[in-house]
């Protein structure tokens, strides 16, 4: 299981501040932060602790199993963001 962030994210960083395992990216200061339209949760690292859900002021975060149909795409989207990021880092290295 993981949590996923949907498109209604307003990027106010409340979730980043409370995440105990630092699995929400990009973070302010990251090169891809300003151009990111939303934040994403790394499904490989998320521990399903629920802290981000409580912190989000616009209810944009859902447990995977309870993601509304209209945001079903978000599970793949969150994972894909990290897959692309990893690939880019490997290319740069």
């Amino acid at each position: 299981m993981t949590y996923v962030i949907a498109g209604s994210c307003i990027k106010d960083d409340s979730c980043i501040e409370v995440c105990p395992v630092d699995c929400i990216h990009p973070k302010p200061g990251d090169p891809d932060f300003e151009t990111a339209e939303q934040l994403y949760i790394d499904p490989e690292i998320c521990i399903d602790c629920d802290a981000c859900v409580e912190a989000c002021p616009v209810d944009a975060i859902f447990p995977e199993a309870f993601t509304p149909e209209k945001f079903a795409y978000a599970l793949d989207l969150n994972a894909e963001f990290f897959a692309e990021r990893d690939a880019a880092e490997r290319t740069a290295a």
Partner: protein
Amino acid sequence: MGSGPRIAIVGAGPAGAFAAATLWQLRRDAEVDLFERLPTPWGLLRGGVAPDHQEIKRLDDAFDRETLARGCRLFGNVEVGVDVSHEELMRHYTAVIYATGAQTDKSLGIPGEDLPGSWAATEFVAWYNGHPDYRGLEFDLSPQRAVVIGNGNVAADVTRMLVRSSEELARTDVADHALEALRQSRIEEVVVLGRRGPAQVAFTSSELRELGQLDGVDLRVDREDVELDPISQSWLEELGTFTARKNVQLLHEFAHQPERTGARRRIVLRFLCSPVEIRGDGRVEAVDIRRNELVRGDDGSIRARPVEGDVETIECGLVLRSVGYRAVPLPGVPFDERAFVLPNERGRVLGADGEPLPGVYAVGWIKRGPTGILGTNKRDADETVRCLVEDLEADRLPVPAEPDPERLQALLAGRNPDLVTVEGWRAIDAHERERGSRAQRPRVKLSSRDELLEAAAAASPSDTGS
């Protein structure tokens, strides 16, 4: 009366609200007053965010919790520069933070732009969101086709509002006058024009995806339009963002999906075309467009350049121009006429000599220009407020000549009998939510100044002024 710094924030939109919240985190002794031109706070959260994006509007709870509920005073229905001057604020406050946003729209600069039936998208947005200054506008929704000019999120919002069913809209907090007009709408097709190509659209992929998921709406994209030119292709590979790649992928999917049969309405996304003239005899009848090609500018940016060739005419009866917001100058403070912002360095407003004006700050769109999303204002506010606190702690801020908070409120109340305080706003809010709960809507907005002021006046008089 406390002894902490007294801060006035001009504009109770998201930037002002985030600034107030940040001030309290950094200086618990701060006394913060929010000045707002309208009787209602939260700016574009209430008057800009589309009614069908209710989840985002929930941010008002957080704003309330972190500002008004913590003792921040609200001076609503007060226009700084009209009801009270900048100089007066400086006499009463340690510092003034301008958070007035960008209140007007950019123009296209083409003939016919001012024909009846051609509107700034922001006017349509303010109208359907119940902004009291726009309530009286009359949009003719009887034509079959509308054209939306622009490829950003406001363009996406107005497009959705034009094609959603009245049943869907009736579950939102869309203004009643707009709901009624949209219910009678005969618009069947909305053509959305983008100056550049699929890789350069300013939509978020989330908003673009949503356009393709609307109930009963067919989304058409021409297959040729989504084939990237070599410049876009290489730009996307080298510099393209995650969002730009997603957008191109989504547009490809849209272009190759079968037509949705039995659709009520249709959205057509067109790329690489610019309007050259809006035409009509006394009112909008058509938009003439010309094809563009993309060229790479000296700075690496990708620009649209018109190509020689025929002009194409799109017949339509409504045009919504959505090519960006623009700030207007404020009385008594400097203004950068080229960048359309208050000249500033990290939020410290600069005088004509380029030095910071002591005690004057800017946050949000009036500081950085109309860019970013809601949360961008939180970091923007953090930067400005940190500068303010740094100046305060280094004794760089003027001591207000008139620091008694009651005197300022008395001054405002004396000039404006319809001053809306926190209690007045709470009465408006409760009234709207109560009407909403009876209609199974988030709220039913009051959208004329008289109705709003009447509801505010219903707050117990003994509560006002506290």
